[in-house]
């Protein structure tokens, strides 16, 4: 799928028109272990590229999730809070937020599937 991009912080981004759906990758999900809590942001919040917008808590640690794009949160997947197992590379159910992208150039430099897989391969 060519319209899905990846970050080196292990977020996936599905681009539909001017909206980015953001979730976390299977690798991230595996590294976190069993999840116990997800703190979600509110719709309408303005995000800057690189800012954290959600916190996912596992039995090991609490980790922030970062946005690779600047823009406004137009939707939040409230369903996830009670269905933590859906939080993975599931492009339909696993998205955390949808962000209206303000600067399309933010998407440049993100990895495609094959470069992300190679990146993960290089990690321990």
């Amino acid at each position, binding site marked *: 799928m060519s319209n899905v991009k990846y970050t080196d912080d292990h977020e996936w981004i599905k681009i539909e028109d001017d909206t980015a759906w953001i979730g976390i990758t299977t690798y991230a999900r595996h*590294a976190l272990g*069993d999840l*116990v*809590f997800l703190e979600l942001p509110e719709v309408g919040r303005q995000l800057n590229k690189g800012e954290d917008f959600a916190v996912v*808590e596992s*039995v*090991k*640690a*609490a*980790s922030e999730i970062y946005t690779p794009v600047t823009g406004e949160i137009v939707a939040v997947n409230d369903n996830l809070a009670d269905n933590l197992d859906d939080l993975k590379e599931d492009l339909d159910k696993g998205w955390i937020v949808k962000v209206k992208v303000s600067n399309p150039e933010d998407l440049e430099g993100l990895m495609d599937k094959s470069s992300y897989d190679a990146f993960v391969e290089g990690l*321990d």
Partner: protein
Amino acid sequence: MSNLAYNDNMDHMMSDAENFEDGNRGLHYEENLLWEKGHSDTPGVDLPSLKGTKSRTGQSERKNVGLPQVSEPQVMRHFVRLSTKNYSIDSGFFPLGSCTMKHNPRLNEKMARLKGFASIHPMQPTQTVQGALKVMYDLQNWLAELTGLPAVCLTPAAGAHGELAGIMTIRKAHEVQGNTHKDVILVPDSAHGTNPATAVMCGFKTRTISTKETGRVSVEAFKEALYKQDPEGKDVAGMMVTNPNTCGLFERDIQEITDLLHDAGGYFYCDGANFNALVGKIRPGDFGVDVMHINLHKTFSTPHGGGGPGSGPICVAPSLQDYMPSPVVLKEGTAYRLEEEGERETSCGRLRGFQGQFGMHVRALSYMMSHGADGLKQVSEDAVLNANYILSQLKDDYHAPFEGPCMHECLFTDKYQKEYDVTTLDIAKTLIEYGMHPMTVYFPLVVSGAMLVEPTETESKDALDRFISVMKMIAKKARSGDVTELHNYPKSTPRHRLDEVKAAREPKLRWKKGA
């Protein structure tokens, strides 16, 4: 039955004997609540039968109150058993990384119990507590000398409170100097979680400095963070760095980093949690620290954990002295007094009602005076030696992600064990089975499956060797491929491996009748 969740996999594996309903094992008791123990029909006291009246309470007769009825021996056992559940440095080895769980010398306790210290009140007139004020004044001076930071406020009640005091001091300085554009605090990704939390509580934004490559803050990574939004780093109010850091490594480039930060107009807050590696050897003021908290309950051996209570004085450079919290203890002629409210106009104010954990001040000063300058130097030398001994003995069995030597704590990961499906959690749980408190696990976050071991200087070589042999045994067991036991430990505790996910997702926070 207890409210604790069993690991489902465990149940069918245990024989009937192991599955015996109560969790009492080897004179370790699973202690139920008094509510679960008592029966309403077995009163704990025998009252003589009534003569000439039907009720002891007359008109206001009470119906079923439902209090548990327990006898005196039942009550005694209940509380004595509970008291034995508190694992502490006095019970055994406690190598919790970044926590400095060292022995608390009994001399400290003796000093703190002296009547003149133990029986005074913070609201007494200062002329009646000159000795206590002298203790605080002397402690301020010792801390100033050891850190190279001349101004000291003893008030903060814990490490995180000290952090808050430090960042409030920095905020006040920027406020007074009109630097409203400075709203970013730089924090390395290896930092204690309290660092970014403190910055955010004080209204700053945090920006992460990556240390992933070497475990240290490199000049390049620092510059990248410093100049990220502004070519001169004008938006940066300060940085919070722990040195040595939570990977147990000394930040070698700290001088150059501090110079760059100061050129950009930022202040350097140093997290003093790991001061045990430096005390008596180097003075943080000499590598450019502007404000630093000290955990008296770590480096200076006052009780730690389970409500210690902690004590987190801050030591401040002349650059920030005017802004730090009040009160400090002042000496005029031969008399001591507390700084008055508003005496230092630009102070960020009081942190709490009184003057801090005075009992801890006595203990810390007692520790310093009984060790002396040479003794404190040996403390850090031995702490570093012990950690390096463990690192050298275990680095073939456990992956050490960063090159040694380390400072007062050493970092391993479960990389080698993961190949056999054994994780840091399994290793920690097995240590419990073998009578040791686990090290810090899954922190710092910069490596996967972290195990951070801080033996401290107060452990004997025998204690270190025992820990090393248990760790080697675990590694060997993992390599053998027969890992079922490692997945199921601890087994000799009243409850075995708990389902931590279920406990976190569905916590039962209070007892309910019949639940």
